[in-house]
């Protein structure tokens, strides 16, 4: 596929009875949260199959944890929840692949029309799969994103069409052929954050749209501080800081890279300085990705975000 999108004429990926592989990468998740997720996903699968929109739904877990998150007994327990509708497989990686490489591995072996990339702890609304599949009845849809609760992501989208700059892969549906066509997630560059931004832009570069579906609701268990502010962990801060540099580099924005490096150097804390050092080390050994989108038609860098935001959180 070329830089400007060689999949034309754009097709509608949906077909009745579509098969879906739901895939999640585990990392130290507790059984209770996994069970909650499966209980909701199984019901969504039942309704999607009953409606005729989906034919087969399979759930596969890849486990990047040091020790397996699921015992055989627990896996059997999960399989017994929706034995007719939702088959479950489990792959203990034995090493931490991160999000991007983990999902690539799971998608490699997939035999389905779509993959639903989802965090392992999300609780989906009963009609989530139906709503997401509907987005693919329209030609040109390349990725459909669910709406998060309890805190909606502030990035903007077209209120008439749902078109948006990028989609979070906390819960997003992607046609498997398109996933392969754009090369999956860039696991060489991104470990944990911004792999979804990069992938979304790759989808758009291929000529497809990224669609936000507000009717497809899912619950992603986030908490706020007592004052109503985000509470990111140090790891989240680090990978977000590192990914910001890598994304700007990859999407041909050297001036932004320089600006971020200056800021990290001048005002940064230990976390951001470590991210700066990592970036510079990669650069020194030639491990940075080749820049793309030289004309800046796809990538958006607006006030430190990757889309216009409707409001600040």
């Amino acid at each position, binding site marked *: 596929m070329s830089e400007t999108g060689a999949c034309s004429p754009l097709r509608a990926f949906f077909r009745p009875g579509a098969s879906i592989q739901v895939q999640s990468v585990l990392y130290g998740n507790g059984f*209770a*949260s996994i069970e*909650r997720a499966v*209980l*909701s996903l*199984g*019901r969504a699968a039942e*309704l999607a199959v009953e409606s005729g929109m989906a034919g087969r739904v399979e759930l596969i877990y890849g486990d990047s944890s040091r020790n397996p998150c699921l015992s055989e007994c627990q896996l059997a327990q999960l399989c017994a929840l929706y034995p007719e509708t939702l088959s479950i497989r489990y792959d203990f990686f034995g090493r931490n692949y991160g999000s991007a490489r983990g999902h690539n591995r799971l998608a490699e072996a997939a035999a389905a029309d779509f993959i639903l990339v989802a965090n392992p702890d999300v*609780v*989906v*609304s*009963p*009609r989530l799969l139906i*709503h997401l599949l*509907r*987005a693919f*009845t*329209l030609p040109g849809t390349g990725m459909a994103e669910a*709406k998060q*609760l*309890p*805190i*909606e992501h*502030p990035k903007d989208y077209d*209120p*008439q*069409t*749902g078109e948006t700059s990028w989609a979070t892969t906390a819960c997003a549906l992607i046609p498997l052929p398109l996933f392969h066509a754009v090369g999956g997630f860039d696991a060489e560059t991104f470990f944990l954050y911004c792999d979804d931004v990069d992938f979304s832009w790759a989808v758009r570069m291929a000529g497809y749209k990224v*669609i936000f*579906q*507000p*009717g*497809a*609701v*899912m*619950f992603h*268990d*986030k*908490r*706020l*501080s*007592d*004052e*109503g502010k985000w509470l990111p962990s140090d790891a989240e801060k680090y990978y977000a800081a590192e990914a910001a540099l890598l994304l700007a580099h990859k999407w041909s924005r050297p001036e932004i890279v320089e600006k971020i490096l200056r800021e990290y150097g001048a005002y940064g804390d230990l976390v951001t300085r470590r991210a700066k050092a990592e970036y510079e080390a990669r650069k020194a050994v030639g491990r940075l990705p080749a820049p793309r989108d030289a004309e800046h038609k796809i990538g958006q860098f607006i006030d430190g975000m990757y889309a216009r935001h*409707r*409001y*600040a*959180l």
Partner: protein
Amino acid sequence: MACMPDTVTHFSSALRHRQGAYDNPFAADNVYGHALALLSRHRGQAEGGLHIDIGSGFGRIAEPLVAELGLTYLACDLDEDALGSLAERGFETCRLVLASEERVYQALVALIGGRRLASISIIDTLEHLDDPAATLRALARVAGDHQAFVLISVPNVAHRDLGLRLLFGLWEYTETGILDHTHRVLFSDAVLRRMLAASGLHIVDENDVQIRRSDQAFPVDHPALQSGTTLHRLLCELRGLGDRFGGTNQLVRLCTAGPVARALPFAAAAIDRPLLSVVIRSEGRQPDLLAALMTCLAAQTNTDFEVLVLGHLLDRPRQVSIEQVIFDLPAWLRTKIRFILIDHGNWTDLLNNGFAAADGRYICVLDEEDVVFGHWLEQFSQAAGTAPGRILRGNVLTQSSRRVEYNFATGIRAESGVNNPHSSAFDFFEHLHAEGSALPGLAFPRGLFHHLRICFDPALEIFAGWDVLLRGAALVGVTSVPEVVAIQQKWNRPGSGGEAAERRKVMEKFGAVAAPLWPAACIGQLRDRLDELACLRQVPDTRPQLAALSAELAAHREALQNVAGIYGSRSWRMTAPLRFVQRLAGKRPANQAAIGLLSTSQLRALQAAVCASRSWRITAGPRWLWHWLCTGAP
């Protein structure tokens, strides 16, 4: 007439006591008068036929009853003197032992024979029996055979006087009265209702005897029992929250026979209740919002809850839309939900219905637009463990939202960041002035509604929640959870108006709750002071500006004095001819009369110009000399 033999002694002790003791006269305001009034209200069904008075004593109701209702009066008792008196007065009598259900039933059947039974009365007798439920079952069977009324009266031990005494460790039996020393079973409204339901008797009317000060209002000098004390008013107010029988001396009920409504005549063991009842109001117009809210509930880390979806004034399509949302849910959640249709009233009536049906230890209210965090219930659970029975309050944010519709579906679009309009800790004082909490962050203990009858006021359209919180907080307190537990999505809807009037009403109602401790006028004054304080807070602080102005004035005055001092000095006047010459030459010094119009800076400039002038400088020597002579200093 066939009477049962005196084979058991259940009634005998009561009879021994009764001998010569219970010859109470008939009066319109005592239990006899109330009983007759009840029967009279239903005279269409009671008139004519036979009336059996069980435990009749001297039966002073007999004559008025016969005269007013035209009934044939038949007295049953064990007391020979009482029965003798009735017989002398021309009434039919029978010596009846209230033993087992079957024996009493058979005895009454035999007594009635082929006559039509209109009614039975058993006045202030059941409390003397070891097994009053057995007698009630027998009466129910007889009444059922004849479709007759059963009139029942028992003393009420839930009269406030007993409670006030017991609060201070006082409990005494008396010779007669509510705690007559021969009473075997103690009745309250609830006990009587439960026993009637278990016996197959159903209350159709009531005419209780109210006595403000009962025979238990002693010692008369106890502050809790003296009607003028603050303590008495407070305790009476609290008792009034429990039920309406605090002033009832005798419970007087008219019943008909029907199916047995409960298995046991006594209270069941504690019920295993869920931690939380989630009451959700829905008009069925926004099923997608309801589905989103249900997803929040499906994601709770603590699932010890039940859900009551209250469908309000629904037409068929909207009812079906809600049912569809519920049907869609995972089975584990679906089984926790009750869908209740309510076709009357406003939203506060709706909530009261929901609270009445709720089984949870705590009850909370959610709207379809609300979003709750995953640890919403977990936070409540932890707080409930630290202080059981208090209102639980978490922090709630707000966010502007609007509806969007595309790609065959509708959804909600957030339009703003989250705001934090309320303080994270509950502040009672602030709540006296304004609504400072949001319903999604509140969990009310069920006792507040079910035992203290703190309900949502249908007259309050806007602030019913605030009203319940304020009154409830005064009684049970509030435990704050500092965590953010929910977001209220706000639409751009026009206000309904009337906020000010409702605010005042909320405060008046709180004043009524607090009245026993704080005079109502005190509450009003407090409210007015808070309003004034709020107004004052809106006025900008002008003290810095005043200080700057004051400094400016002082500087101006100093400059003015300096210039005036020069113009008034002897040196200046002495050199006037010089300035006259200058004036002739065209130089015009400042007009002395105009210096009052000059600004501070202009005055300072003038002073500098004057001091630099030749006419001022040439008098510097004499001025120095004069100064030296006057002060002795150079």
